[in-house]
């Protein structure tokens, strides 16, 4: 069996304020293979975002190992990470297409190719024809699609998503889940998807990492044995219910 692409083991992180120590993440251990979509689920304050920020190189950690990349696939932290947040965080003075090319501009990639790729990606996320619009002219869901296209523009190997659909209404959210699965299958990226929605985590992930709050620790690493492509109908399946119940139990909610 080949080596995992993302490897975390025993990662621990505490935040220190003046005279208090706050344990944000304790003993997080999991692997993700290249091209895998892994969900990380847990209540707010369980350190989900901290785990993502550690992977993005934005936070240091106190102990443990974090490794991205293996013998087959190299990894360059400055070009191989795409980020999507709960808020689309678009620059309101830039047109949609210019928002999408922002990471490419920062990396100094050739402009013509970037624009071409941005058009291709906007088409892929279903925003063909909106290239010249401004963000405020688009709905919340469309803005979030733009930010997904932006995360893909520099062709990174890893996409880190921090509750990307948390601000959307339930219907749009389900639609975006299906869209994400399609984009993921098309782009073959390794995606880490942080959410507090248990159903969403099970529906999307080939694996679900369960974190709990108070104390912040990793509770489970659950393989989701449902076939792709996944369809909404699966949410009513016996299997699906078994997985969600299992996770609810971990969070002392069942």
């Amino acid at each position, binding site marked *: 069996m080949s080596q995992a692409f993302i490897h975390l083991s025993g990662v621990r992180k505490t935040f220190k304020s003046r005279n208090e120590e706050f344990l944000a993440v304790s003993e997080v251990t999991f692997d993700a293979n290249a091209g895998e979509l892994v969900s990380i689920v847990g209540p707010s304050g369980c350190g989900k975002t901290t785990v993502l*920020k550690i992977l*993005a*190189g*934005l936070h240091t950690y106190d102990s443990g190992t974090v490794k991205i990349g293996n013998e087959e696939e190299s990894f360059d*932290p*400055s*070009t191989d*990470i795409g*980020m999507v*947040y709960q*808020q689309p*965080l678009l*620059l*309101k*003075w830039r047109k949609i297409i210019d928002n999408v090319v*922002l*990471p490419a*501009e*920062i*990396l100094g990639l050739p402009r013509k190719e970037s624009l071409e790729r941005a058009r291709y990606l906007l088409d892929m996320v279903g925003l063909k024809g909106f290239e010249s619009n*401004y963000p*405020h002219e688009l709905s919340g869901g469309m803005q979030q699609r733009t930010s997904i296209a932006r995360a893909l523009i*520099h062709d990174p190997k890893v996409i880190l998503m921090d509750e990307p659909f948390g601000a959307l209404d339930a219907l749009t959210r389900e639609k975006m889940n299906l869209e994400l699965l399609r984009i993921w299958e098309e782009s073959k990226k390794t995606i880490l998807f942080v959410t507090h929605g248990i159903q969403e985590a099970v529906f999307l992930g080939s694996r679900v990492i369960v974190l709990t709050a108070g104390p912040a620790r990793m509770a489970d690493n659950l393989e989701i044995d449902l076939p792709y492509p996944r369809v909404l109908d699966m949410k009513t399946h016996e299997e699906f219910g078994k997985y969600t119940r299992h996770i609810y139990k971990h969070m002392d909610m069942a």
Partner: protein
Amino acid sequence: MNNFSKRLGQYGIIVLVHLAVVVLWHLAIKITEVPDYVMPTPIATLLSLQEDYGWLHNTWVTGVEVWGGYGLAIVVGVITALLFSWFRTLETLLMPLMVSLNMIPKVALGPLFIVWFSYGIDSNILISFSICFLPILLTMDRGLKEVDPDLIDLVRTLNASRLQIFTKIQLPGALPYLFSGMKVAVVLAVAGAIVGEFIASEEGLGYLMLQVQVTMDTAAMFMGVLLITLIGVTLYALVLLLEYFVVGKTNTVN
């Protein structure tokens, strides 16, 4: 065509309202028979331009003071805000001081400025500068801080340089704030210059108004006020125009 006639209508209303005030002004004086030295008619005011008061020169002098002080305030204010955003210790040290300085009624500093810099155009520029510097600094400083930290994180994962973060995200984001400060500062700049001229000077519209006050030439005093207003209005219109071209309609404060 529809758009054009709508525009024309808007400007038409502006002109009509102003004209209506002038007509009402004229009628009110004709009906109440207020003597000319208390309240001149619009026509008498206009005719005062025939007097040999050096209108052109004095308007020019006041214009230089207003525009000079205003321009200086923008340059120094923006640079100071930038330094504050780059060197946080500088801001921590100096910002409270700036806020205290803002509380000083700058008009009260007029006599001091004249002691320090003798009287004339230079010291009036300085009074005008001192009165509109802080609104510019405070709004620009605020604008530079308005950037979502997650957005900074996003570009930091791409190893964006400080300059890139500044030119691509912070500066364009701060411009709407700067312009709102600039609009407030126009009024202050005019007031500053005139106060300087009232205190001590031998040219400028403020000086002229004190001169004609002695001879009870109320019409000329009215003309002085009109010309001072005109200087302010021209500056304001220019700022609006600049805002339109630099910031556009999409990049407004929320």
